[in-house]
């Protein structure tokens, strides 16, 4: 085989192209780091390992809580938006409209410092996470809407006709069908939550970003700290998107 043939073969395989593209990014990173006037020194951060890890851990914990909370709230909003009672639909519409127009930072601050205290709740961490949940919930509702719309009216009619109970419909017919459509966007929203959780530092929740700020103020090595923090976020989100793709392939109809 000549060199020409080999190169064509190389460019044709998917993995090879991904590898090549990754190398471009690595080379770019390498170049940028090499051009720095003051060389990067990650060893300065070694004593702060525990702090980074605990921030990383807290970010995951709070993201999982926010994921579960927003799925539950999003599902409740979805149910309300599909009822025949117009008030509920109006209620969810207005809430969605408000949330869509609100920056996440504003949502968290208003929850923790305005709405929470009005109800005698001064636990800012809890209210901050609640803000994150309320912010993501309408996006979850949208996911439910599009996933459930894949089930035709005729299918519901068939369920009626054969006499399936509500539980049986969800358990055997609806959920197995919608779960496939549900998983990929759900995972995308999870990425949104993970990145959004960085803003919880304003309520002093000790997640990754909060820890990073703390370490910066002690070491003044903010470039190094931010790079490590960046890497840690990617460490969560990249495997997550891979998992999403895997699930998509596995469960694709």
């Amino acid at each position: 085989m000549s060199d020409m043939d080999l190169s064509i073969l190389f460019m044709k395989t998917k993995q090879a192209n991904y590898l090549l593209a990754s190398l471009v990014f690595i080379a770019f990173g390498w170049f940028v780091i090499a051009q720095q006037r003051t060389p990067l020194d990650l060893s300065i951060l070694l004593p702060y390992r525990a702090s980074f890890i605990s921030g990383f851990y807290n970010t995951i914990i709070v993201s999982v809580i926010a994921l579960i909370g927003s799925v539950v709230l999003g599902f409740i909003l979805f149910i309300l938006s599909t009822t025949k009672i117009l008030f509920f639909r109006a209620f969810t519409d207005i809430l969605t409209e408000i949330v869509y127009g609100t920056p996440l930072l504003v949502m968290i601050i208003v929850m923790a410092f305005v709405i929470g205290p009005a109800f005698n709740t001064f636990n800012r961490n809890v209210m901050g996470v609640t803000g994150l949940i309320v912010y993501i919930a309408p996006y979850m509702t949208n996911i439910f809407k599009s996933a459930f719309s894949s089930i035709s009216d005729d299918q519901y009619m068939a369920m009626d006709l054969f006499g399936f109970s509500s539980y049986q419909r969800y358990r055997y017919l609806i959920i197995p069908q919608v779960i496939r459509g549900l998983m990929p966007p759900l995972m995308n929203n999870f990425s949104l939550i993970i990145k959004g959780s960085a803003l919880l530092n304003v309520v002093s929740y000790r997640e990754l970003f909060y820890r990073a700020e703390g370490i910066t103020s002690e070491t003044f090595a903010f470039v190094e700290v931010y790079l490590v923090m960046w890497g840690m976020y990617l460490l969560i989100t990249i495997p997550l998107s891979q998992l999403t793709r895997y699930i998509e392939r596995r469960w694709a109809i």
Partner: protein
Amino acid sequence: MKLAIQNLSHTYDIEVLKNVQLELDDYNAIGIIGVSGSGKSTLLRLMAGLEKPSSGDIFINEQSVHSSSHRDNIGFVFQHHNLFPHLTLERNISLILEKTRHKSKEVASATARKNLELLHLHDQMHKLPKHVSGGQAQRASIARALSVDPEVILLDEPTSSLDPILTHDVLSAIENLRGLGKNFIFVTHVMSFVRDFADYVIFMHEGEIVEHGSPTILDKPQSNELADFMSKVR
């Protein structure tokens, strides 16, 4: 079977059925024909109890279609097969028998296989609906309707989404079921099937039954509407 339609009216945005009346006794295969929008599919859905009529009632074998036991006595075949897309042909049937008819797993699965074989689908039963042809899926849907052992099987234009060859395939499968002792009420545009299979014909036009009788009415229409309809279909 006995069929009684009493003062039946139904309105969506417009009136689709206008005070329909009919009493029939002792027919086994009733064909409902008419142009699109004449109310024939609506009538069939009301017979299945899938919708509640605006007024009036329908009785099949002296039982109101709104009684809870009615649904156990009917099988329904939709225009498009309407199988559950995530289940194999076999599971589409056995799930119903297991969960809503409380059969054991073994009995449910054996009944499903038996009915699929009856429709010549023994090679296809472990496939998903999207992996079989439209005709095969529609035959599976007929097997599904049969498997709950209904007295009456309702078919709503079962071949409207199929090409002529698959149409023939599905219709001859239905004709082969004649020996099972079931009753059929069906809506179709295929006149040859009406002639071959029906022992009674109902012609609908603009929400009313304009003519009804044995299939010979197709050849000797009394009304202008049916004459006009027959001149346009083959």
